[in-house]
């Protein structure tokens, strides 16, 4: 392993993390809900889910974030490394997997770890491990 010092951005990463933590704190303190994006979005697709208004408004804020950002400064770079087939496979796996596993990077990785949930520790370990393994296979075995 070598560290990519050129792309290492510790301060914006920490500051962005602090904002994410503040948002998750606000949502639980004010609305009593976990800021887990796969759960919020997935449950909007289910008939008869409770709290649709609040869930939809949270997601609307998230959706509009780049437009609000764009009012003040240029958007940060967004660079994709997969083509359409990769994006379709990835999206399907992320959609199915996060619903089966009851959470994603936000629900398990941030909120779950912060409230010291045993399930979230295991889930985060699992998706990090398979994420590392997948990138290893793609970059160092298939593309090597």
């Amino acid at each position, binding site marked *: 392993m070598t560290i990519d010092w050129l792309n290492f951005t510790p301060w914006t990463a920490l500051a*962005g993390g*602090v904002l994410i933590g503040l948002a998750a704190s606000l949502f639980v303190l004010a609305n009593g809900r*976990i800021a887990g994006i796969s759960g919020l979005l997935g449950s909007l697709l289910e008939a008869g889910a409770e709290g649709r208004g609040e869930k939809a408004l949270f997601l609307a804020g998230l959706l509009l974030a780049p437009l609000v950002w764009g009012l003040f400064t240029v958007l940060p770079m967004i660079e994709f490394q997969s083509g359409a087939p990769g994006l379709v496979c990835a*999206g399907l796996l992320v959609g*199915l*997997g996060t619903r089966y596993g009851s959470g994603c990077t936000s629900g398990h990785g941030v909120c*779950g770890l912060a409230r010291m949930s045993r*399930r979230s520790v295991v889930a985060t370990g699992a998706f990090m491990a398979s994420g590392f393994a997948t990138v290893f296979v793609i970059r160092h075995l298939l593309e090597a």
Partner: protein
Amino acid sequence: MRKLTAFLAGLIFGLGLLLAGMANPAKVLGFLDLAGNWDPSLALVMVGAIAVAIVPLNWARRQQQSLLGAPMRLPVSSKLDRRLIVGSLVFGIGWGIAGICPGPAVAITLTGHWQSLVFMLAMLTGFWGYGVLQSRRAD
């Protein structure tokens, strides 16, 4: 009031993702590439987020109601079952292919990249497929 806080929480969450670099799939993949030229930035995103959220979330765990009077809806299960583990492993594979997880997927939907729309449609299909499989199982 709760409608406003929900919207603001989502907005701040999205601004945080953009600032942190989580909305850039290439950066996420740089973090997941342990064996290559590793960019550890995203570990610090989690450190920052958890450091801020740890006190409010643990306080919330012991409350019946939120500060604005909403019922506290926190997960209560502590069961480590196969669904949790298999689901998370599958999610990680998808995350590793494209470098996009659900939060950033929503946050980059309106940035004008066709890729984000393709990913979002596929992810929604995955959510929908999960719902279909669940209702079949219930029958």
